[in-house]
């Protein structure tokens, strides 16, 4: 009877605790903004006197007094301000598209009257994608800002600011046809794709190149500079970089503004392998889709515990989901890397979490934007209820695997509850990357620490250059409270012994030197010609994505000028169906089809198949001549799909 009662009580407790939600730990409230305001928030900061300053899409800067809930207009007329910092109660520094500006209320009437240009020493082509982000400030008072690349979605304006430079094309030629060799994102004016350092006297120094869309530029408590970047060309997935002066962070368009860059050299025609040796890999990768699509600002938890148990950790905003990301930094063999996991997931936050600031009371103020993409608008305030959620609070690499730390003592766990898999994102010119080399990784040993909050896991395979994704199954605290977030991804760049070699990240199979096609005699119909026997210049021979036939498939890399060709001999001339089996995700990638050097009109429409593992057929009719026939697919601006094989069938 006693035992029955006890289990009944446990059951009750279990039911009561089985569904704790984020609302038990963090309260999210929406702050009313002035009526009529387009409340897309570009920047948030707190003044020393406790008021909040916010800048908005249409160029306004407002001050908000939390005590009275009153908004007052401080400045207006700014050009897409995307970041703000306070110098004192009368002075704000704001990054707008054309410049870093100091706004000062010199006559103390509550409104800025002096708009001082701190630096406009960078170029603008007027391309819509040339956003300007920041500022953040180091301890010496230097400001740091991030400059977005231009997008091939549009051209430059007839008039630009600063020098034009684009691989030997004149500004006039480029204006007329910006797709000619532009690449998906381009840097045609000084320092697009760079982080700039701006001294208090306005002296502007290019600090680090290699960025695509460096929306978040911020220092953490430890004085490290962090920059987020977005999935796209050269970025297999979105990233968080630990940035140091002079390092290169992976997107090559900005390299044309380095001193050593050869004039007229096209960064898009350099092999990714060359860049891979020069680049600094991201400290943290945010897996596209599952973790984040568009990370924004990084903010370190400076509240000393007022905001919960994560003091000192990093928070990163995300545009597409109702969540913030939490980053657990790990220093391994002198390198910074770490893990990310969702935070306040579906906890009532708007989408489009763009900018953050901690109030003096330790509450987190978050502002949303969309700029016509996915996102939201408005201002919210997040406060900790004082209850500690059951969460992962640390993930550290060890010699054998990982040590996980939790906020509460754990109940009994076993290896099967820790489902690891690993994958990598390719470093290449194409837009994004599938998760390649994906495989489950077995936990070979598990040990629980004496404090019952730590678990040491040994893994079957531990190699640099992979994301180790962990899904935790039914892991609970001692009191049965389930883990709030059960999904975490660790970016392993460097092992504890310092090994960081990861040649698989680049297109090691990429063919810079042309490879000749093997000649094949047409003996039957239909006859299948695998990609492995094709000649090629540019495309890599790959096996990462499943579903291909034969030995593998050819993977187009550069935007244009690459080809893949088959050489077939026929005994007699005649019409033939050419069927290409291919896969492409995230857009259409038409190719030119050339038969014996002659362009068969109309590009072949290799349209989106939905994923890199979904293969489809595309057929076209062509008249083969007697003897040798060279069938060539050539990229001319939109890169190309993965091509599995060619099937020839006589009519």
């Amino acid at each position, binding site marked *: 009877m006693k035992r029955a009662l006890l289990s009944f009580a446990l059951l009750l407790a279990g039911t009561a605790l089985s569904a704790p939600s984020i609302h038990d730990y963090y309260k999210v409230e929406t702050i009313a*903004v*002035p*009526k*009529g*305001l*387009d409340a897309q928030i570009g920047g948030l900061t707190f003044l020393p006197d406790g008021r909040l300053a916010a800048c908005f*899409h*249409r*160029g*306004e800067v407002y001050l908000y007094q939390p005590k009275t809930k009153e*908004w007052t*207009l401080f400045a*207006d*007329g*700014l*050009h*897409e301000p995307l970041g703000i910092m306070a110098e004192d109660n009368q002075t704000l520094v704001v990054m*707008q*598209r*054309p*410049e870093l*500006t*100091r706004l000062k209320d010199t006559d103390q009437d509550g409104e*800025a*009257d*002096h*708009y*001082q*240009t701190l630096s*406009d020493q960078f170029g*603008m*082509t*007027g391309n*819509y*994608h*040339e*956003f300007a982000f920041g500022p953040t400030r180091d301890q010496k008072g230097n400001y740091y800002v991030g400059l977005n690349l231009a997008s091939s*979605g*549009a051209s430059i*304006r007839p*008039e*630009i*600011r600063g020098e034009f430079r684009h691989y030997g094309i004149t500004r006039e030629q480029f204006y007329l046809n910006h797709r000619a060799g532009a690449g998906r994102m381009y840097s045609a004016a000084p320092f697009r794709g760079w982080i700039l350092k701006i001294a208090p006297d306005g002296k502007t120094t290019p600090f680090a190149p290699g960025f695509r869309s460096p929306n978040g530029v911020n220092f953490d408590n430890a004085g490290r500079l962090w920059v987020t970047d977005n999935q796209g060309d050269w970025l297999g997935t979105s990233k968080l970089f630990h940035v140091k002066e002079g390092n290169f962070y992976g997107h090559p368009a900005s390299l044309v503004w380095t001193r050593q860059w050869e004039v007229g050299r096209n960064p898009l025609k350099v092999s990714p392998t060359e860049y891979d040796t020069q680049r600094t890999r991201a400290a943290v990768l945010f897996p596209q889709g599952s973790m984040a699509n568009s990370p924004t600002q990084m903010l370190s938890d400076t509240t000393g515990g007022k905001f919960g148990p994560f003091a000192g950790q990093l928070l990163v905003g995300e545009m597409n989901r109702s969540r913030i990301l939490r980053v657990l930094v790990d220093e391994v063999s002198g390198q910074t890397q770490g893990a990310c996991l969702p935070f306040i997931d579906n906890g009532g936050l708007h989408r489009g979490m763009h900018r953050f600031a901690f109030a003096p009371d330790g509450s987190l103020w978050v502002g949303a934007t969309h*700029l*016509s*993409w996915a996102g939201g608008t408005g201002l919210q305030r997040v406060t900790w209820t004082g209850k500690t959620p059951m969460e992962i609070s640390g993930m550290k690499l060890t010699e054998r695997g990982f040590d996980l730390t939790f906020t509460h003592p754990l109940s009994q766990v076993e290896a099967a509850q820790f489902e690891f898999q690993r994958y990598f994102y390719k470093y290449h010119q194409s837009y994004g990357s599938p998760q390649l080399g994906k495989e489950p990784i077995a936990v070979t040993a598990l040990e629980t620490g004496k404090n019952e909050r730590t678990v040491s896991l040994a893994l079957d395979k531990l190699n640099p250059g992979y994301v180790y994704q962990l899904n935790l199954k039914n892991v609970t605290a001692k009191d049965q409270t389930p883990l709030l977030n059960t999904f975490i991804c660790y970016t392993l760049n460097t092992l504890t012994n310092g090994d960081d070699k990861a040649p698989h990240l680049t297109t090691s199979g990429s063919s810079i030197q042309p490879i000749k096609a093997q000649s094949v005699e047409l003996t039957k119909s239909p006859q299948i010609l695998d990609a492995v026997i094709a000649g090629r210049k540019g495309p890599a021979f790959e096996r990462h994505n499943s579903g291909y036939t034969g030995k593998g498939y050819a993977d187009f890399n550069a935007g244009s000028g690459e080809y893949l060709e088959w050489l077939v001999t026929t005994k007699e001339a005649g019409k033939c169906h050419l069927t290409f089996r291919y896969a492409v995700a995230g857009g259409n990638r038409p190719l030119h089809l050339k038969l014996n050097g002659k362009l068969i009109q109309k590009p072949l429409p290799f349209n989106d198949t939905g994923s890199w593992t979904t293969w489809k057929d595309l057929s076209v009719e062509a008249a083969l001549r007697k003897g040798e026939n060279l069938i060539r697919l050539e990229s001319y601006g939109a890169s190309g799909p993965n091509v599995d094989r060619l099937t020839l069938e006589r009519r």
Partner: protein
Amino acid sequence: MRPLALALFTFAISISAAPLKLTLSTVPGLQFDKPRFTAEPGQAIELTFKNPDDMAHNLVFTRPGQRMAVVQATLALPPDSNRPIEHQAVLAQTRTLKPNESIVLKFTTPKARGIYPYVCTLPGHGLLMYGALYIGEPMPDLAKDTHVPPLARAKSANASLHAWPHRRPLMYRIFMPDASPAAIAVALPHGVSYCWDAGQCRLRYAWIGGFVDPMPVWRGNGNGLAKIIGDPFWVAPKVFPLKVGRALQKIEFKGYRKIKGHPEFHYTINGLDVYEHITALPNGMGLTRHFRIPKITAPLSVTPGHGEIDAALTNGVAVLPPAKAKAFTITHHHRHQK
């Protein structure tokens, strides 16, 4: 139901028998307060026309589609003339009203249905300052009505651009046509607006009428240009307006101060501080650029580019001695172009 319908019908008849009394006012920036209104065919109108603006205006009703014909015909007349316009397309007209005058205009609407324009025919005003009297015709959506000025359409489409009331001066740093990407648009009082280019540190052009429609830029991610609403009256020549000495000039933008809401731009020419402050002419027919170069010690060459400057011009260039170059003005007038 029947008696009620009958009663309404009678009521309507009795209204149209009495004169329709209404007020139409001018609004600074070459606008009428009502972009359009309706009346019945053959209806007596008693219209009080008020001019609270700080410049002179008149009010002329024309036959359908004849607004520009009448405006063109009045070009020959001297401004502020009180001579009535003699034109077959004019239905009714007031004399020219000075600021703060008002007048009552009585007329009977034509029997023919149609859309009858009303306009201020003073030089330069007729292109922007007009409206439409709908007689027996249905009105389309204001945002789509091509019979009202573009500004009225834009206002209707974007009811509220900010959380604070619109007031001039108003300025936006925004993508503008025919300027560098670091452009600034400023709306002065009296309907005068200009584009100052922070990328080149000079005034690029000026216009009269409305300000800009910023929505092509604001609506999305910035892949658009603000649309000028109004009538351009001055465009800068290609050369930089100021030249100090013979050395190649390095020009750097330093920002601006707001003086009663108006920006005074600050830039340097080879380190020498230059300030430029722009005001509208009191009659709204142009603007004056007030330059200050407090520390200048060398002569200054000025290319005013179709502007008035208090100095002799040689090949379009005035050379000011340092004492004069410390503070001088250039005025650009709105000259009506055919």
